[in-house]
């Protein structure tokens, strides 16, 4: 009788220990990797901010090339996989880079700006204000290209492409407005101008989020 009682007590104590262990285990596990990713995300965002700030300081000293180098570094930062802000930070950097190249007022600067913009548009996965800014910038760069062109055909072509770029900026802004106002997606039967550098897959997930 006493033996049975002891066995029952041992079983009870074992179960008690199990409950204690299970409840200790519950909260400790998955928190660390998430914190590591968060920390990495914050570090890269902070570094991007510092690089942009350095570009500000270099620009205030008239060092445009230094500012270009500093902003270019933002594009090489190791953002964590799947980080929502990474696309915007890079688009923002590309927009600034394009403006810096354009500010030089040379034909070479215009070409460099167009290259940076094309890379940004190709890499962009979704609609955002940053992307519409980039389209607007492309229009400006193409207008600048038209002003540098020596022959009428090139000038005309650049201006027509600028119209298309502004058209695309409008299309993105219209979609963003609809998302912000919780309106249903519009029926885009209008001949929206596109080109090879357009983000693949047509109207993509929209992230109104930040503003340039």
């Amino acid at each position: 009788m006493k033996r049975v009682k002891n066995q029952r007590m041992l079983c009870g104590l074992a179960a008690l220990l199990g409950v204690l262990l299970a409840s200790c285990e519950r909260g400790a596990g998955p928190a660390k990797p998430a914190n590591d990713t968060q920390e990495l995300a914050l570090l890269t965002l902070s570094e991007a901010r510092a690089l942009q700030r350095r570009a500000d300081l270099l620009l205030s000293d008239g060092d445009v090339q230094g500012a270009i180098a500093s902003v270019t570094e933002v594009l090489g930062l190791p953002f964590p996989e799947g980080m929502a802000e990474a696309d915007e930070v890079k688009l923002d950097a590309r927009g600034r880079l394009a403006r810096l190249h354009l500010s030089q007022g040379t034909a070479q600067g215009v070409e460099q700006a167009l290259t940076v913009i094309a890379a940004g548009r190709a890499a962009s996965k979704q609609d955002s204000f940053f992307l519409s800014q980039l389209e607007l910038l492309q229009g400006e760069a193409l207008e600048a290209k038209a002003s540098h062109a020596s022959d009428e055909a090139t000038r005309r072509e650049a201006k027509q492409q600028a119209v298309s770029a502004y058209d695309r900026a409008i299309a993105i802004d219209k979609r963003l407005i609809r998302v912000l106002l919780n309106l249903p997606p519009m029926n885009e039967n209008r001949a929206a101008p596109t080109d090879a550098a357009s983000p693949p897959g047509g109207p993509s997930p929209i992230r109104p989020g930040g503003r340039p």
Partner: protein
Amino acid sequence: MRRLCLLRWSGLWGCALLLGCASSPSVKGGESGGEIGQLERRIATAKGKLSGGDSSSGGMSSAAQAPAASPSTRPESVGGRCDQVCLAAEEICTCYRRICSLADDLKDARSNESCRRASTDCEEASRQCARCR
């Protein structure tokens, strides 16, 4: 005797549950937010010292949005929903003016059509902005 045993066991189980709950780390939003805030401040201070930059802020969203393009772009503050709608409307109207200026120069059917559409888009976006406010 049996009732006493039952009482003793239920007491032990209760204690075990309480102990277990107390020992598990809580993941409340406020606490994790505080930790992130602390981390942000630490990083911002360190980076500020490194780059000679502003170390007063550095949140995730502000860091993503703040170092906006050139000084010639629009205000950097990210306002509410209506502010964003109105900024988008402003951008649409900027594009409209540029398209129509180019269309004047190009004088072709396609550019003229773009100018006409952009005019409608600018009006509609301005109305949406006004209604939102």
